[in-house]
């Protein structure tokens, strides 16, 4: 029996949702960027990897529908997680991802710390940037999904809206996708993996747990709250087995490589990106 030195942060469902969105997001990014840059040699090459423009579009559309189904499943999952007897208490609990006034205070304290004017904020379970990550995807997915669905069936959609609104939808779809890629490949990657103590890789989303020592520095208020409630022992888990670690290190680095490569492509072909 391995020693329980780690604190559980993500359930199996959370990790599966993250794994799903990692894979589907990358497929969408590659098939989308290839078609966006179809006028360039790179775009033609990437689309060629999938066979043809039509095949790349079909993959993009199918994966998009899968993502929307997963989003619906996620909403059902979240609704089951809320304790409906005391929703007010539960929704604004530190264990919830709903933004609180405390997050604004934490951001202020963080900026104060950046300027060397005070101590770093004492984070609870979810920090403000983690909440931003979550809600950015939460509003981005339906936006991309609805605009994508409209562009998927333009003739049918134009029965319910003027055809010129498809021009606007196309702009929204491309701009939002570009924002999502830039945010994930620059901000999400660097906050997750480049920071001190995180550097080779932040294993939390795969292992589901973090070393208690590390979390004492990162989220002191959370640990303190758990100790106060006497629930710290309940959430302690042993570390992941070695074979699993090897697997997710290889997978994680493959994903990072594709993401950074796409980021380089975006920067390299910035003049060819027409988002409208």
């Amino acid at each position, binding site marked *: 029996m391995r020693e329980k030195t780690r604190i559980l942060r993500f359930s199996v469902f959370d990790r599966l949702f993250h794994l799903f969105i990692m894979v589907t997001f990358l497929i969408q990014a590659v098939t989308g960027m290839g078609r966006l840059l179809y006028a360039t040699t790179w775009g033609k090459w990437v689309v060629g990897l999938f066979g043809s423009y039509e095949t790349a579009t079909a993959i993009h559309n199918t994966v998009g529908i899968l993502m929307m189904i997963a989003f619906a499943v996620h909403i059902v999952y979240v609704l089951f997680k809320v304790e409906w007897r005391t929703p007010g208490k539960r929704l604004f609990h530190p264990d919830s991802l709903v933004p609180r006034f405390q997050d604004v205070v934490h951001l202020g304290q963080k900026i104060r710390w950046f300027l060397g004017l005070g101590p770093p904020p004492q984070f609870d379970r979810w920090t403000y*940037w983690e909440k931003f990550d979550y809600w950015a995807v939460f509003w981005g997915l339906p936006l991309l999904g609805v605009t994508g669905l409209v562009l998927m069936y333009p003739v049918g959609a134009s029965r319910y809206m003027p*055809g010129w609104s498809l021009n606007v939808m196309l702009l929204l779809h491309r701009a939002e996708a570009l924002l999502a890629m830039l945010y994930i490949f620059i901000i999400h990657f660097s906050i997750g993996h480049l920071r001190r103590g995180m550097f080779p890789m932040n294993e939390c989303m795969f292992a589901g747990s973090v070393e208690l020592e590390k979390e004492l520095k990162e989220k002191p208020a959370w640990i303190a709250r758990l100790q106060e409630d006497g629930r710290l022992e309940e959430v302690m888990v042993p570390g992941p087995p070695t074979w699993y670690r090897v697997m997710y290190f290889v997978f994680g680095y493959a994903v990072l490589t594709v993401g950074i490569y796409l980021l380089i492509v975006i920067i390299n072909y910035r003049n060819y990106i027409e988002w409208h």
Partner: protein
Amino acid sequence: MSAKGRVIFSLALLCLSLLVAVPAPAQEEVTSSIRRYREREASTGYYEEYEVKPRRVRPFVGVPGVGRKPFPYSPGAAEIRTRTYLADSHRGLEFYAMRRCEDCHVAEAKHSHTVRGNVTCRQCHGGEPIASINHYFSPLNPIRRHAYVCAKCHEGANASFATFMVHEPPAAAAATRKTFPSLYYTNWFMYLLIVGVMGFFILHSLVWISKEFYHQVMEKKRKPEDERKDQNSAL
């Protein structure tokens, strides 16, 4: 005829002339006013037999999207504008036969239908002479565009579908604010969103990562000295 008789006669002629002479503008009732032309079509049973000229441009009314000024466009611009009603939109252009579409229509040649769908100009705009889009018989006239052009590929295309702008204006251009406001403002919204989010978070992570890195280096530097101090104090 007496003088009195002449006056009566000329007055009678004048009265008769009111009944006989129809004012000149009204004589174009068949060819210039669409409404009356439709009436003629309905009464005769002959449809689309004559070419119908557009309504006269009224100088004090202006054209949608151009501005309501007494003289909203220059004579040169007016010449171009009237080209949107011609049976041969390129009428009178020098060396027209030697030119390619994209020589003049540079931006129009780079849109998704051409770049992705391999659609050529003539597949939508038709062969020579290429009619102006607003010409009454043009396949691209909005009254039949969906059926004559769009539906060739997009099965079941309707009039609403045909309002999709294939040659859409550049979303960030100032003129787009008047010609396609929703596109213009959406573009600005997304642009500010991207610049705002990325600007804030890039700065945020840069400061954060470098500050943590600095602390790490300083701790590493300090550690040996501290250990030595501890050893000294222990001694």
